[in-house]
């Protein structure tokens, strides 16, 4: 237990320099894109009053060296102050809140569903290696693995929304009360298409990797030894084989969640899903630099947290990684 706590502390401390690196990089890129005041001025079409202008100069610490300005930005950041959105003139932090939730709710439900379906399929496939069903499963998985989400999204929208007209093609919820009058059903109907696309792609990753690891693990003597001690086959498969096969994949699932968050602009834009990715595209088109910066920082932080969670789960599952 002591080693587990030690490991957690090490992982958390390790996040600090990574966090600083990521936010500094984002901040410098964002600044290279343009001076926020000029952009605000553009938005006001030259009618920006002088006193507001001076306030903005002080607010953004214009004229200071970029590193000093980064420190101010960081200071604000840890107080959840991400500046003002240029398009809505509201604090970026309060705008982003609901978007984070909308993105997470899509991403996490897809991941959970992919694990729920993927684990039994991978087990079945590994235990029936080279059978017809195994070959079919592997083929479908390879297809999903090599397909970009936004492309699959467009195909799905074409089939289910335009051709079959059974599911909504965009947004997370209807603008007006749907004819069946039930908002929960309405949300689910909107979730189905983007979630299916995302689940399919993650499912493909999970099945491909888990099947491969299971085939390796099932050859190990500890599996035979567990069978030889009289355990039920189910107990051996779920207690020993699955746990050993999935542990190294935890890292990859964590990374793929990160990649999936980073790839959210493509998928969310295809479905006009009002999450971080979609809003990122909107803000970038409107040259709303504080919002773009804010979203980038939040996505980076989410990726960091996903990685930390991954490391912790891994450390919890595998005693060998705790020692270092």
């Amino acid at each position, binding site marked *: 237990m002591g080693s587990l706590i030690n490991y957690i502390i090490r992982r958390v401390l390790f996040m600090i320099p990574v966090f600083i690196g990521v936010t500094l990089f984002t901040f410098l890129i964002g600044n290279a894109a343009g001076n926020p005041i000029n952009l605000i001025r553009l938005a006001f079409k030259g009618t920006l009053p002088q006193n507001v202008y001076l306030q903005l100069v002080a607010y953004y610490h214009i004229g200071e060296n970029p590193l000093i300005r980064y420190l101010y930005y960081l200071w604000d950041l840890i107080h959840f102050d991400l500046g003002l959105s240029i398009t809505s003139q509201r604090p970026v932090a309060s705008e982003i809140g609901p978007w984070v939730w909308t993105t997470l709710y899509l991403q996490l439900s897809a991941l959970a569903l992919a694990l729920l379906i993927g684990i039994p399929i991978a087990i079945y496939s590994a235990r029936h290696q080279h059978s017809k069903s195994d070959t079919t499963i592997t083929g479908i998985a390879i297809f999903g693995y090599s397909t970009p989400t936004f492309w699959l999204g467009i195909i799905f929208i074409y089939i289910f929304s335009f051709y079959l007209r059974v599911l909504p093609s965009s947004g997370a919820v209807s603008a007006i009360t749907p004819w069946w009058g039930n908002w929960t059903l309405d949300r689910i109907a909107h979730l189905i298409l983007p979630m299916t696309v995302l689940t399919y792609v993650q499912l493909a990753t999970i099945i491909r990797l888990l099947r491969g690891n299971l085939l390796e693990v099932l050859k190990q003597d500890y599996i035979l030894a567990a069978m030889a001690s009289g355990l*039920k086959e189910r107990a051996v498969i779920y207690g*020993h084989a699955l746990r050993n096969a999935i542990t190294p994949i935890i890292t990859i699932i964590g990374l793929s969640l990160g990649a999936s968050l980073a790839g959210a602009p493509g998928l969310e834009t295809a479905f006009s899903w009002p999450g971080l990715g979609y809003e990122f595209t909107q803000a970038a088109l409107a040259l709303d630099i504080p919002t773009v910066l804010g979203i980038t920082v939040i996505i980076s932080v989410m990726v960091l947290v996903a990685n930390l969670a991954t490391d912790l789960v891994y450390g919890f599952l595998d005693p060998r990684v705790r020692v270092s």
Partner: protein
Amino acid sequence: MEDLLKVEDLRTYFFTEAGVVKAVDGISLDVRKGESHGLVGESGSGKSVTALSVMRIVPKPGKIVGGKISFDGTDLLTLKEDDMRRVRGSKIAMVFQDPISSLDPLYTVGKQLIEAIRANNETVSKEQARDMAISLLSNVEISEPERRFNQYPHELSGGMKQRIAIARALARTPTLLFADEPTTNLDVTIQAQVLNLMKDLKKNFNMTLVLITHDMGIIAEMTSRVTVVYAGQVSESAETHTLFYHPTHPYTEALLKAVPRLDKRKQLQSVGGNIPNLIDPPTGCRFHPRCPYAIQICKEKVPDYEEVETDHFVACHRWKELSLVGVQ
């Protein structure tokens, strides 16, 4: 003495993409109650697969395709899987060759022992199982059993892991123990300790032992009877003493020549050539391509398994005319 385990004409094949690997192709084995029976042969000759077949845990794509296995009067091959599971661990147990991979790296020693103790046996409470696990650890002469109980396999030495694997096999005091090359992957000094431990445990737990090895030295040290297998078939079977002094199969003679001897400063000879491909094995006697005494009939006809004398059997066309050299 009566037979505890009787294997007759066992056939276990692996249906691989490259072809059907006839890993065990007609092995017969009589193990008597209370004895230490050696199963010897070069690596790849089907010893492990024989043990796995008796326990009915042959991994895919392997399958038992023929033969009969009776244990203590029960026909194991016709048992339902649920009933067979109750035999595993409680009547027949097995220790594997590689202690590094035979313990699950993700669970503590204690968890794995308790799991074995409570398999099909939920009437034992967790606390009782814990006490039993600790006493098993003392049985296999592990110091500080309380501390080891909470350790993970990667924190232990190879010798200690093998002792723990042995403890797990003994968890429900089986009648028959298969020890599959239990010391092959250990240092020489540790090997001797583990073999001595196995001798003591066999006596204390009143077990019958089938010791699998490719090392004739260990056979001499540990067993009273022995079955020699070559390429998935039995070539000779006898009391250990008889086999060493009066071998009747050329393969046995070759194995004996390959034993390093401390008392003779003779060059160590290995058995010349390689074990044959088991997908497409040689015709006739499978040993004929490597046999210095092979004649035409050996290539053409499979030899019968004949009785040389009481308790001594051989599968060789020429056993009557050859006078082979055993240990002198």
